[in-house]
């Protein structure tokens, strides 16, 4: 058994295609200006249906974090730091922050995206502490 692999939908396919290219994109609503995550069938700000993916610089701040010692299933190396990240340019997402020692991931930590391939199709937006080189290379 391995880690659950995301199955792209019509809403998310451009996100995963961009991730494979090493680009972080988030839904952006041209009508009301909101950037949001996860993708929804209509904008959570104004219910417009014509939102589009827009690039993010991939820098942000840890809003909250838990160090998970007991994973929900096989395929995870524990412990890992599961964090909520507020992106500087809008939208909030869930990801692992790899700081080497997961205990070093604290609320307020500045992070940037670090893409790592999970499968041929799916590349995941990990985050690593800012001003630090990526501590480990792709899995």
């Amino acid at each position, binding site marked *: 058994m391995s880690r659950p692999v995301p199955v792209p939908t019509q809403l998310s396919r451009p996100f995963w295609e961009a991730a494979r290219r090493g680009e972080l994109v988030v839904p952006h609503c041209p009508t009301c200006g909101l950037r949001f995550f996860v993708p929804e069938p209509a904008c959570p700000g104004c219910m417009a249906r014509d939102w589009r993916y827009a690039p993010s610089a991939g820098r942000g701040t840890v809003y909250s974090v838990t160090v998970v*010692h007991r994973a929900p299933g096989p395929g995870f190396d524990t412990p890992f730091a599961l964090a909520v990240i507020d992106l500087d340019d809008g939208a909030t997402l869930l990801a692992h922050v790899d700081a080497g020692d997961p205990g070093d991931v604290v609320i307020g930590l500045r992070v940037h995206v670090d893409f790592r391939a999970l499968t041929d199709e799916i590349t995941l937006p990990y985050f690593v502490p800012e001003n630090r080189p990526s501590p480990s290379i792709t899995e």
Partner: protein
Amino acid sequence: MNPADRRLPVVVGVYATEQALSLPDRDAMDLALEAVSGALMDAGLAPSDVDGAQVDWPGPGGVPGEGSSWARVLGRDLRWTSDSMLDNAGSRGLLKAAAAVRAGFADTVVVGGCRLVSRGTGPVGAGVALEFADVWGSYVVAQFALVAARHMHEYGTTSRQLAEVAATIRNNGTTNPEAMMYGRGPYTADDVLASRMVATPFHLLDCCIVGEGGAALVVTTAERARDLPHPPVAVLGGGMQYHQAAYANPALYREVGGLGRPAAERAYAMAGIGPHDVDVFSLYDPNSFEVIRQLEILGLCGEGEGGPLAASGAIAVGGKHPVNPDGGCLAYAWNGTQQMTLKVVEAVRQLRGTAVHQVAGAELAVVGNAGSGAQHYEMSVLGRMR
């Protein structure tokens, strides 16, 4: 409450099946049938007295998931039913049944059932694949942990305060013969802190148990309740709040820290009471922290003050605000969605004066169900009638 209010919705029957970590000789249908029969017997009613069923129908038999399957075994046509597991449990189920009774769509509604979620595959969670959560190992405990961690960061809430909550509620289960954890413990806060870490800040003993069992309750009108055996328990008020669906997005403290407060304010106003009038609280306790958050949103203290209040002894059976005298989900039972109904069962027993750990003279109870980190809250105010 007005004695002339003939359609006032009241709870007249409650029942909990055995609750255990595993019930290998039982299936969900068998437990659901026992729960319904037990609640009707407690109410002094026959199956044919029921004209509404918000009850899980797991099958075999009937059509699994279709509530109207109950019409055939109850032996009569129904006027009210539900096909949704969350509408069949706890405060949400109770309030929808009460609304139906109040409006006259039905006179006597059974709410409850059984779903053996612990026999499913994968972690307990939404029950469907979540594209942006599952891949990160973001499951129930971790999503609640993300909320707790932010509360601790903002207000200085401590792991020891969390541990005091867990120990207090767990110790109620230690001496409750119906509890899954009966005879285990007692626990001190140090025991909780010494148990292995699951997801910071939650140690193993900060987290609820996972098991199997069913439950049901019967709602009818105050008029119908007059000649029934138990003192009726009135549904005096209620409120619900839904922030978003379960687990797809992480619960953010800045969005859900106050989740349930407006619902509680509406429920208190409807009942004509305040939080300090309440004698006993039956609250969702999937972990120690969620109790602390609810003390705040239920108006028992200010935001950020829940940790010290919970650790002060206030939530003990003899305290100012007793919480979960049955041992809660931490030690009595968590069984999927019907753990929410168990919260109503305990509140009704307290108001009848028949609880295992009875709060002396309890006249008003609050039932708080929540979930998913928490993304939803359903609260009801119950009161003893005579």
